[in-house]
């Protein structure tokens, strides 16, 4: 059966956490519900599952690419236009270090940004069920359930203290 989203709006973190517990008790998989807030709550505040990510790989990959590009740019530049100064070697490391360092850091930072956006699953071209009251401080509990369970989930969310429950089919109940 196709799954449909349903969004419960809660005034307090305690009620939202209660809703999470009730959903878990009702056998809803943790992958099927999420908590939407307008500010970062301490991790685990709603009893939500841990979100695995690979963000720390991105800066390392970026730094390696930047380091390689930096070394190539600085060494090849010096070899392409050799300026001998005072009998010093053409490939001199101290001046190469600065540009190489900057290119390493720049690429690491750019890759970190790409990683953050990618790992945050952004951009989300098709926004799912959402309510603008979330950015007013309400806590949204977004649940994906089988269509035939929408009614029971709505009742569960309301029982947990939702001030409103929003559905894609227009069904909304206080």
């Amino acid at each position, binding site marked *: 059966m196709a799954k449909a989203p349903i969004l419960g709006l809660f005034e307090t*973190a305690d009620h939202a956490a209660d809703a999470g517990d009730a959903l878990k008790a009702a056998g809803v998989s943790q992958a099927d519900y*999420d*908590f*939407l*807030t*307008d*500010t*970062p*709550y*301490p*991790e685990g505040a*709603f009893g*939500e599952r841990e*979100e695995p*990510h690979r*963000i*720390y790989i991105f*800066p390392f990959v970026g730094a390696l690419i930047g380091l390689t590009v930096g070394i190539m*740019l*600085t060494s090849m*530049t*010096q070899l*392409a*236009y050799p*300026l001998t100064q005072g009998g010093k070697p053409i490939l*001199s490391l101290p*001046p*190469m270090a*600065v*540009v190489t*360092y*900057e*290119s390493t*850091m*720049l690429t*690491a*930072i*750019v890759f*970190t*940004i790409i990683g*953050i*956006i990618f*790992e*945050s*699953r*952004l*951009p*989300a*071209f*098709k*926004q*799912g069920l*959402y309510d*603008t009251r*979330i*950015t*007013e*401080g309400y806590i*949204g509990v*977004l649940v994906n359930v089988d269509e035939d369970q929408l009614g029971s989930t709505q009742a569960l969310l309301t029982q947990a203290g939702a001030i409103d429950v929003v559905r894609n089919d227009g069904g909304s109940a206080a």
Partner: protein
Amino acid sequence: MQEGKPLDSRQVNRELLVSILNSPKWFFGAIAVLGFIVLVAMSSAGFMINQGFGVTGLNRPVMWGFFITNFVFWIGISHAGVMLSAILRLSKAEWRRPATRAAEILTVFSLMTAMTMPLIHTGRPWRTVYWIYTLPFVPYDYARGIWPNIRTPLVWDPSAVYTYLTSSILFVLVALIPDFAVLRDRTTGMSHRIYGMLAMGWQGNARQWKLQIIAGVLLSALILPVFVSVHSIVSWDFGMAVSVKSWHSTIFAPYFVVGAVHSGVSAVAFVLIILRYIYGWQNYIRHEHIDALARLLIVVATGWFYFFVMEVVFGFYGREADEIAVRNLQFTISPWNIWMMIFVGMTYFLPVSIWLSKSLRRNLWVMSLACIFVNIGMWLERFLIIVPGLARKQLLTFDWYTYRPSSVEWIIIIGTFALVSMLMLTIARVVPLIPLYDIKEGEILRTEIKIGRVTVPAVFRED
């Protein structure tokens, strides 16, 4: 650091988005005045480019004057952003919350403004394109077999500044995504569509917030070394120059970095006071925040003063004739010695005396004045490093000269201050200068603890 009253999400949205959703009446007037000053400055730059460098006060041997002084000054101001944002974020300092965004944006605009200075200073700015491109989209002038000399600080400098600028812009944009979502939810029509695109479909789920928090810490840690490198490399524009004795100093890199933090943090404190006043953000930019900045500035200023004294002591210690000639000019010949006294007084003695008093630290008028003094002083510092060094660059006295800035230079310099002010006001019309989610996070972590017979405001802190 929780002296204010509790705030709810709606109030935070309403009050912090006032600069965007309900633009004050004076806004367009202020933009018009500042825009006019910028236009006059641009016209002056155009006049200079048309007429040549003869209309400036630059002449041999003083070929670096107001423009390069101003370049170093604005690079210095840019150091506030990362100083406050990264260091305070990494150390989880609670009072960072209202200051970070304004500081980061000030970084971006001051860097952009700084980079206009060397371009104007070239006298033929369009030729600078050959530094990077010889054909459209074809980097470097390899067609003529010429490559940039990566051994010179003048190539290191733009590579560092553009790394810092790119990183700062990306840092600001990533941190803005959740606030763009708030604006998306509060606007209609074209604004709604634009903010919607910028928010990229942000919903504020647990995963997105987790990544956002990691982003803040990770990017802070990555940008910090870049921040230190930028002003170090700017200092090497001078320090690596063997031919100018008073510039050729190993202490320049830390001296410049600490000086940049000093002027930058003072500028941020001033900007925060202005924002508090014009947008009525008393609930967010509180006396405790300005107080904390002032206390931080005492440490930074003292560190800076130590480097300043060391730089002078080392200068005298060598007893080289051309170094002594520069110090003689700086400390004994009018008007340079007067400028020197004004510079040291304004940068250190006057503001630090003010910051030592709690009541003065919390007096916003006095604090504004102290911050302005620091920045006048720090501008003079760069001027008094650059010009006397060049004026006494040559060993023989008949090659000595001085420098008098022309009205064209004055107008361009004033224009840069108007430009940064205009850009800050304009951006305040588009993005919230205080991060909404950061303030809201502070509110949910707020608590009170009872110790004996007194109840004190406190804040929970995650590990």
